[in-house]
């Protein structure tokens, strides 16, 4: 494989934002997740829990509620008082309607999916009608004294439960008046000065209202009489979220201590018909508040302030007991936030509101395998570029020669020219960018840094020629058929002839850059593409999908390569297919055409196409071949997949030159150290 000097980079201070709301859509098995900085991500749970689409955040947007309505429409409402609809095809925000009630705290879609209910700061509950292209205000319900923090529809759509501060009201939808007002105790069988905030309510079809509040109680109320039926004290801190399954035989609650409890409707004795709600399983997968939970038919989904998205399949609901029933924790981003300029050894880090440019350090010492070499020159923080405006940065890129930086937000596109004199760096902005370049999903520079490729969110692909300090728009490839995906990836060959773009579900399109026309299309695969790259001399396109399949397609021949066909016939090793995190970057060695270097969050692998492929019985991860065995045995156990798990968690790994690698790690402890304070826990013996 060769010897490499590895730059271990840990100064990328990446802290993801906490998860605020989660909404599960049953028909398409998709999960919409909204974070505290306003980003909304859509995960496809059947495509190996891969993040398909995302909508970038905004500083003034503080989403408090997210819900799916009929026809795969996604709505969100927040503290800025507006209800927003997201266009999942065009990947932008369709419109925003002001509810005129102040900050919106909760939102619920009716069981039929045609009406939307919104609970506001001033205590009013507003009903909106969902029309094919917009939402229309219908009427107000009776106004309550304090803010409405949680809402829930009765499955028949006739009644509504609204949780507020210290009380829960039950409304009748037809008349809009409050039928019952149930006062919640401030403390479990006691008195307290702090107000009891009802964080979540759920309405069951038999008329039971389940409420969770800030005193740590889960209470069952009868909505016909307005009385308390049962009360469970489950935590010393707030219980912040509740989600009920569709069959109404189980529900899940999340607490501020990070514990998620599963309640099930269980018969009292084994052959009786009477059932009762019993707290069955506690799960402790979070360290901080669990602010949102969702219940899919087979799994419990939870997310909170500690930024992990945890999906726990329930063993009794899972049909086949294979690796699909394991716990999934999504912590690291599914797309690349780092770009690298190999010539000047620069790294560009993308944050939500700024970019950082660092120059790697250098060393003159040498050593053996496994040594840590001392730095003779430290890494340099060259540039801290803040974006103007409240919007988040969608994507960014630095050219391989290091003289151009480009990044895009929803409304603007920025291009900067860098000049290096000795050790100083000066920045100059290229003004007057054309309007069609904004809201780019992916930006890529060609190898010789003369061309810029921009994939916009409408599906169009633009080629811009860069020269000196100015640019010229060369060509725009129009969108092809198929639904647009946000994980639009671009790859360009090192000779600059071919450009591959995966933006639609119709497959990966390969364009001829010199002749400016479509060359061929790689056949569509039903899992989304997670990484793509074109090999330097052979012009083979290597594609990695979210189900961990890797394909190699020869662009000049317009067909899959022989090696790829062999791999597909034999199939990948089962441990390779059971990896949790998607492959986010693929690169190649300039002098060794048989090597493919790829990495995901917990391993990096060099695939040697000249060695035999492993079958399911061989050991996949064998870092040190046995030296005391004979040569024959060593040759038998060696296989094509050379995996190393030394550097993890990896955010980015690339080959700088023939003998150097750069690995950007982000230890989980460093992320946790910058999170908000958690609830104090008392442990025996401390």
């Amino acid at each position, binding site marked *: 494989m060769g010897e490499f000097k590895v730059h271990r980079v840990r100064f990328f201070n990446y802290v993801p934002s906490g998860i605020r709301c989660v909404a599960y859509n049953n028909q398409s098995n998709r999960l919409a997740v909204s974070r505290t900085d306003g980003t909304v991500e859509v995960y496809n749970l059947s495509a190996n829990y891969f993040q398909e689409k995302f909508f970038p955040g905004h500083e*003034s947007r*503080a989403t408090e509620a997210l819900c799916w309505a009929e026809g795969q429409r996604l709505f969100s409402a927040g*503290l*800025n*008082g*507006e209800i*927003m609809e997201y266009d999942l095809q065009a990947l*932008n*925000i*369709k*419109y*925003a*309607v*002001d509810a*005129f009630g*102040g*900050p919106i*705290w909760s939102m619920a879609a009716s069981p039929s999916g045609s009406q939307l209910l919104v609970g506001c*700061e001033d205590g009013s509950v507003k009903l909106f009608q969902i029309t094919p292209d917009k939402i229309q205000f219908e009427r107000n319900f009776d106004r309550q004294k304090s*803010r409405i923090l949680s809402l829930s529809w009765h499955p028949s759509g006739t009644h509504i439960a609204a949780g507020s501060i210290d009380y829960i009201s039950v409304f009748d939808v037809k008349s809009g008046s409050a039928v019952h007002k149930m006062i919640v105790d401030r403390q479990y069988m006691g008195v307290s*000065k*702090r107000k009891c*905030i009802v964080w979540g309510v759920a309405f069951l079809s038999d008329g039971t209202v389940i409420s969770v509040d*800030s005193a740590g109680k889960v209470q069952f109320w009868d909505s016909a009489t307005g009385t308390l039926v049962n009360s469970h004290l489950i935590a*010393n*801190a*707030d219980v912040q979220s509740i989600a009920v399954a569709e069959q109404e035989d189980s529900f899940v609650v999340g607490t*501020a201590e990070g514990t998620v409890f599963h309640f099930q409707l269980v018969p009292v004795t084994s052959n009786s018909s009477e059932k009762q709600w019993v707290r069955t399983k506690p799960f402790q997968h979070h*360290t901080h*508040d669990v602010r949102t939970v969702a219940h899919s038919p087979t799994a419990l989904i939870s997310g909170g302030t500690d930024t992990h998205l945890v999906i726990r399949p329930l063993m009794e609901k899972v049909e086949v007991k294979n690796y699909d029933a394991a716990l999934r924790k999504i912590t690291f981003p599914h797309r690349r936030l780092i770009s690298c300029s190999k010539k000047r050894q620069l790294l560009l880090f993308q944050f939500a509101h700024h970019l950082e440019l660092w120059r790697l350090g250098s060393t003159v010492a040498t050593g053996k395998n496994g040594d840590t070499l001392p730095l003779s020159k430290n890494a340099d923080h060259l540039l801290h570029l803040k974006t103007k*405006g*409240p919007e988040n940065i969608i994507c960014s890129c630095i050219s391989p020669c290091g003289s151009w930086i480009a990044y895009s937000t*929803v*409304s*603007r596109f920025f291009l900067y020219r860098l000049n290096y004199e000795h050790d100083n760096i000066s920045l100059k902005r290229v003004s007057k960018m054309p309007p069609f370049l*904004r809201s780019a999903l992916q930006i890529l520079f060609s190898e010789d840094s003369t061309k810029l490729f921009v994939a916009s969110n409408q599906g169009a692909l633009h080629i811009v020629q860069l020269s000196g300090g100015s640019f010229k728009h060369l060509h725009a490839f129009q969108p092809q058929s198929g639904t647009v995906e946000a994980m639009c990836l671009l790859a360009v060959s090192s000779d600059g002839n071919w450009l591959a773009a995966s933006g639609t579900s119709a497959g990966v399109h390969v364009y001829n850059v010199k002749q400016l026309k479509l060359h061929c299309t790689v056949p569509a695969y039903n899992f989304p593409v997670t990484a793509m790259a074109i090999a330097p001399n052979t012009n083979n396109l290597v594609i990695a999908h979210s189900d961990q399949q890797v394909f190699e397609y020869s662009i000049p021949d317009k067909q899959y390569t022989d090696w790829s066909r062999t791999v597909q016939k034999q199939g990948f090793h089962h441990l390779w297919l059971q990896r949790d995190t998607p492959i986010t970057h693929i690169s190649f060695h300039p002098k060794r055409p048989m090597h493919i270097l790829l990495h995901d969050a917990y391993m990096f692998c060099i695939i040697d196409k000249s060695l035999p492929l492993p079958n399911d019985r061989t050991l996949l991860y064998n870092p040190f071949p046995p030296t005391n065995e004979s040569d024959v045995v060593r040759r038998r156990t060696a296989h094509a997949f050379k995996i190393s798990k030394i550097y993890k968690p990896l955010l980015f790994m690339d080959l700088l030159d023939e003998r150097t690698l750069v690995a950007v790690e982000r230890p989980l*402890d460093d992320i*946790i*150290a*910058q*999170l*908000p*304070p*958690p*609830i*104090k*826990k008392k*442990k025996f*013996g*401390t």
Partner: protein
Amino acid sequence: MVQLRPRASRAPSSAEAMVDEGQPASEEEEAEHGLLLGQPSSGAAAEPLEEDEEGDDEFDDEAPEELTFASAQAEAREEERRVRETVTADKTLLKEKRKRREELFIEQKKRKLLPDTILEKLTTASQTNVKKSPGKVKEVNLQKKNEDREKGNDSKKVKVQKVQSVSQNKSYLAVRLKDQDLRDSRQQAAQAFIHNSLYGPGTNRTTVSKFLSLANKRLPVKKAAVQFLNNAWGIQKKQNAKRFKRRWMVRKMKTKK
């Protein structure tokens, strides 16, 4: 007989009081006075004491001055007239001042508002739009900041459509600033409520480092704490020390040379 200290007569005191207004009058009086006192002095306020004393001396020897009723009456009338005049003059001055200030304010206000043409257009347009937008009256207030922010912001599309029908110039967006302030303050109040209920007083929160060290405490072999150094301790002291060191180095360099 007790020698009463003679009181200062009316004539010299009145002359002092009216020294700034009625200069010729005082002079006239002084002239009259001078006849009695034998002191042709103008500007009696300059040396009142001496005059009094001298007047006192004079008065001790001579008889009190004799003034005819007519002259005294005339004097009194003159005084009153003068007083009235000053009062009216003051009043007119104040009135003028007030008038000028009012005009200034009206001008400033006018400068702030848009030209009448646009205002007219907007008021007529808003009347027609009243049915479409219940409960929201728009006043035009050109703000460059809003324009920049709203240009590319899709969430304000609704407002843009309403303004477009009014003016041909579609490059700006009219937003009522009062509503914006109200909305921001409400949003801040809402965020303060959430912060208070989750992290405020009464909640049982601890720092992340203490939380992570809890697991550490029960381990048989103790590890280092997650946040071993407290970088926020003694910041001021460290800054002072740095400054002192720099200055000391400079001084050392100077003395060395």
